[in-house]
């Protein structure tokens, strides 16, 4: 128990220090670049290889399981599973709320966990939300970003998919910090871990079957599309925490493009086959 906290402290201190150093270094290229969205992906070549591997793994194993799950299990039950996974994530969310200095949110997350685990029948229902108690899931990666740690380069992890050094360190520490793994001792926490990892993956995949199929079939560059989705998603979660308005950043991107009104192009006609 004790050494776990040391590992986390050690990891975070390295990341925070390195974050401070890299922040200073990165000040001057923000205004000089005309490339508006600068993609931090120096390992693109290796990443693309691992990405291909993950696609094969998905095609052969994860996707078929997700499709079967969605076909066999009725929507009502699938929704219960989503709720229960969400509930199991509440304790770690509460811990991260605290680490981010958000006492009120930590209270909400804790109440949600207590109410939904009892009144909500082991988290299969969400009565807390009807009482106005809603919260976003938080992980240690997001806490690190609140602490000023830069995400670092984009990484594709085998089996686990898109990540960054910060989010990977966060994921690793999350499993060490999670109160759910401290209670009950060996067997309980292990089966919970398996439930969350396995079912969580299938739950996520089954919610995205059509979307990911479409994306894969219609992409000009599937790798780049996924990279953009991942970075944009993480960025918006991070700015929610720091209460930055993402619109401002986005507006800059949209305003920066000087609309060439002089050439409107051919009239776009819709032709159906």
């Amino acid at each position: 128990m004790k050494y776990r906290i040391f590992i986390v402290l050690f990891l975070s201190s390295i990341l925070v220090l390195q974050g401070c150093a890299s922040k200073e270094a990165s000040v001057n290229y923000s205004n000089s670049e005309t490339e508006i969205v600068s993609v931090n992906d120096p390992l693109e070549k290796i990443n693309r290889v691992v990405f291909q591997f993950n696609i094969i793994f998905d095609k052969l194993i994860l996707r078929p399981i997700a499709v079967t799950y969605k076909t066999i299990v009725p929507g009502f039950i699938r929704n219960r599973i989503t709720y229960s996974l969400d509930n199991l994530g509440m304790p770690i969310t509460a811990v991260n709320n605290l680490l981010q200095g958000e006492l009120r949110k930590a209270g909400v997350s804790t109440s949600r966990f207590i109410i939904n685990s009892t009144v909500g029948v082991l988290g299969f229902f969400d009565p807390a939300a009807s009482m106005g108690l809603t919260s976003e899931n938080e992980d240690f990666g997001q806490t690190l970003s609140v602490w000023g740690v830069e995400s670092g380069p984009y990484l594709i992890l085998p089996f686990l998919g898109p990540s960054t050094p910060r989010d990977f360190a966060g994921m690793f520490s999350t499993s060490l910090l999670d109160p759910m793994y401290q209670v009950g001792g060996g067997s309980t926490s292990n089966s919970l871990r398996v439930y969350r990892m396995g079912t969580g993956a299938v739950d996520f995949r089954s919610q995205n079957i059509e979307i990911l199929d479409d994306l894969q079939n219609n992409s000009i560059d599937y790798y780049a599309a996924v990279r953009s989705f991942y970075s944009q998603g993480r960025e918006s979660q991070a700015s929610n925490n720091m209460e930055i308005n993402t619109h401002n950043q986005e507006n800059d991107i949209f305003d920066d493009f000087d609309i060439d009104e002089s050439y409107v192009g051919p009239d776009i006609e819709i032709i159906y086959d």
Partner: protein
Amino acid sequence: MIKFKQHCSIVIILFTFVISAHSSEFAQEENFVTNFADEAIEILSDEVIGENEKTSRFTDLVMNAIDLNLVSKFVLAKAWKDSTNEQKEKYLNAFKDYFINSYANKLDQYSGEKVQVVGSEAAGKYVIVESNIVREGTDTLKINLKWRLINRNGDIKIIDLNIEGISLVIAQREEFQSFLANNDNDIEKLIDKIITVSN
């Protein structure tokens, strides 16, 4: 217990009142989104018309609501300015087919789910209308959807959709930039690729 239920229902009624009573300076834009979503759901849930009719009516609806010309230029970014007029024309046509093929025809996944407008705000020269899509069979599993609109003297067009913090236009733009970077920044190759994917 009964009292508790009464309290709850009062709270819920008050809450719904607060939501429906919210008024905004961008009522025009909010109505645009509501009408668009209603029409889309009406078309998609129509049991009488055939699949082809459904697709063409839906495509019509989307193409009338979006400023595709502006989106096309935006996703190409710097490469748009560096292209010849001939390339621009070829690209616009290719991107239109690609767009219809990959977006306009795919929205039927969202049928049966209701879009609730929850607010709006100014964003530079655009207006952002925020809405939620509630997952079927639940009250609380929501998908957040933000519509970036441009209003030119009452003529409102969609510029971008942002789903849970992910802007589709920015994603498309990054995809094109990545393709160009990996293909000698050759716009012709990009156009060919777009044509291949949409067929």
